[in-house]
């Protein structure tokens, strides 16, 4: 490990820079790693994540692609099968729909369909989520769809430290891994040093301990959940905040042990409520710790409409801190 020098004070960086540093580290460490996607080279990525990497690693390893999501994800699969370790950036989750056949029918199933011969060690990074006034066709939260699919791992780093460490874990995995980066997190500032808690694929993290209620969330909703917990503390409600980090597999043990202690559960998910990851988590809680619950599970999700463009409408459609506070209060009342 290179980050070993015992720093005396925590350094601050952004989520964007942490992800970039993780890519830089991976590109330096393993010549099989390369980055491919739209505008990732000269432009440095539409969200600026790969800024400077073309200059450092050259066009062979930082590859701008034609505008064809299906093609560059498919090519990534081919490269991965052949022994490379591609990082494919899809500009946003909305555009990943053009590559859905490659992701679901190919990446997720090739190992199975080849009798175990063709592993696909592919990492796909993409921006997800709403909240930036980019309207109904650029604001999806489809992580839950992907979490439905056997054969892939789905990760949602929500902190600067997770952004710094998630890529190495994903690249080390022999299976396809999807990393969802919520667009609202890129400017988040924090300590990139994971300390004792680097991303461990499949394990959730308790971001704030509490005793009265468990808020289960991930990705772009984590900052809102933490804000809600802070506000609830002022109202004498101690909320525990669990950051899932991994959406497939889900860390049932972390969720259930928390709910068994707090006896109240609120799931916060920016996706639409129907058929959502929030629905899956609620179902698991009722399956596994029903008798620990003192109240029904609450869910805070987006309104079931195409996400509006206008700021005030968009804010009304998305889960907000006040909604989370209200849901927790309802659960514990």
């Amino acid at each position: 490990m290179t980050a070993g020098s015992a720093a005396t004070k925590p350094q601050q960086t952004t989520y964007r820079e942490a992800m970039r540093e993780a890519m830089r580290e991976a590109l330096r460490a393993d010549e099989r790693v390369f980055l491919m996607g739209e505008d990732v080279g000269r432009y440095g990525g539409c969200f600026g994540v790969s800024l400077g990497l073309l200059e450092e690693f050259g066009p062979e390893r930082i590859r701008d692609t034609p505008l064809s999501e299906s093609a560059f994800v498919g090519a990534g699969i081919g490269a991965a099968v052949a022994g490379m370790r591609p990082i494919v950036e899809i500009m946003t989750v909305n555009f990943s729909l053009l590559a859905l056949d490659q992701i679901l029918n190919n990446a997720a199933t090739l190992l199975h369909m080849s009798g175990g011969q063709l592993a696909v060690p592919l990492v796909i990074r993409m921006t997800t989520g709403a909240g930036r006034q980019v309207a109904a066709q650029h604001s999806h939260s489809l992580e839950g769809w992907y979490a439905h699919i056997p054969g892939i791992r789905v990760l949602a780093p929500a902190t600067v430290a997770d952004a710094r460490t998630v890529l190495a874990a994903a690249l080390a995995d022999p299976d396809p891994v999807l990393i969802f980066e919520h667009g609202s997190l890129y400017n988040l500032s924090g300590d990139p040093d994971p300390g004792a808690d680097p991303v461990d694929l499949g394990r959730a993290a308790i971001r704030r301990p509490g005793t009265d209620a468990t808020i289960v969330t991930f990705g772009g909703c984590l900052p809102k959940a933490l804000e809600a917990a802070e506000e609830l503390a002022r109202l004498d409600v101690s909320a525990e905040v669990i950051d899932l980090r991994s959406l497939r597999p889900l860390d049932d043990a972390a969720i259930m042990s928390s709910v068994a202690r707090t006896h109240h559960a609120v799931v916060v998910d920016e996706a639409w409520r129907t058929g959502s990851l929030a629905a899956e988590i609620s179902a698991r809680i009722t399956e596994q710790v029903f008798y620990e619950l003192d109240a029904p599970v609450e869910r805070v999700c987006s309104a079931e409409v195409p996400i509006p463009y206008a700021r005030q409408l968009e804010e009304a459609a998305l889960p907000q801190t006040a909604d989370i506070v209200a849901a927790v209060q309802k659960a514990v009342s």
Partner: protein
Amino acid sequence: MTPVVLANDEGDRMTGRRAVEKSTTPNPASGSTKRAPQGRGTRRTTGLKDEPEFIQLLTPTGERIDHPDYPLELSPEEARSLYRDMVLVRRVDAEGTALQRQGELGLWASLLGQEAAQIGSGRAMRPDDFAFPTYREHGVAWCKGVPPVNLLGMFRGVNNGGWDPNENNFNLYTIVIGSQALHAVGYAMGVQRDGGDSAVIAYFGDGASSQGDVLESFVFGASYNAPVVFFCQNNQWAISEPTSRQFRVPLYQRAAGFGFPGVRVDGNDVLACLAVTRAALEHARSGQGPMLIEAFTYRMGAHTTSDDPTRYRSSDEVESWRAKDPIVRLKAYLDREALADETFYKTVDDEADELAAQIRSGCLALPDPDPLSMFEHSYAAPHAQVAEERAFLADYLAGFAEEEH
């Protein structure tokens, strides 16, 4: 097709047009196969400074040249009105950019530099011809009679669908890259079944030409011999990616592989765009099927107001295109032929000022949407789940009203 082998130019951007531009483009007017019509500049291109081979009726200095395959009779009045259209839409566009910079629009996609491609093709259409735009076709919208302020609602975030597509035969803007090419083919197949002689235009860009949707629309258009014109404004840049990343032979040559004619036109020459698009529409309406037009132009501004083009292209390149400005070019022609005088130019400028003022006040007067309006268009018919959420939000909002009293 002439096989084209290029040197490996990884990272060497604009040299992709080194292609030998020998075309087997059939002449849309006669249906015969002959060498591609040639305008000025028939030499091979090796870089930015060279002119590609394309159809041109007006040189950058305003000299009128004829082309045997694309004759154009143009009255002085028509020439002036093309100038007027281009000046006015440039002003509409400048106002859009300014309103975004002042925080009145969330986003604006500028057409600056593409006025000739849009006005030329837009004016070539008959009222019954139907256009499927991307999100940048403000000039085509103008030609189809969509009031400019109606374009702004979506960019301001106060409404969607700011105009009735059937009223002007101008579809709503499509945000998803390339999707509209398929919709246009479907519409054209409907026109075909109806038995009319209307034609359809699908607009798209050089970046979209790599999308499966666009290529699949070529397959369908050809397979069904649909009355559709594929009109690509090759403005050289797909956000930061140059055309050499999207194609290694000139785009228009792709058409041959799909089984229909392709032509390249000087996209900064409004007369050539008009004549070529007219010919392609005639080709479509006379039952000969699709045609691909590549309008070779340049996006003088940013991809959208969210973009900073200085990150990926040189000011030299931008300046080299400024010398080919479509409005300057037409004005040079009008002056050279003494078709317009100062009074005319002043009138157009005054009209542009007035239009800009109207757009500004019209934009600011657009009503803000009611919060409950977000539930209005999830479904065309009443829907229980939406009704439930709508009622919940209505109750929630009513709570604030009570607090105020």
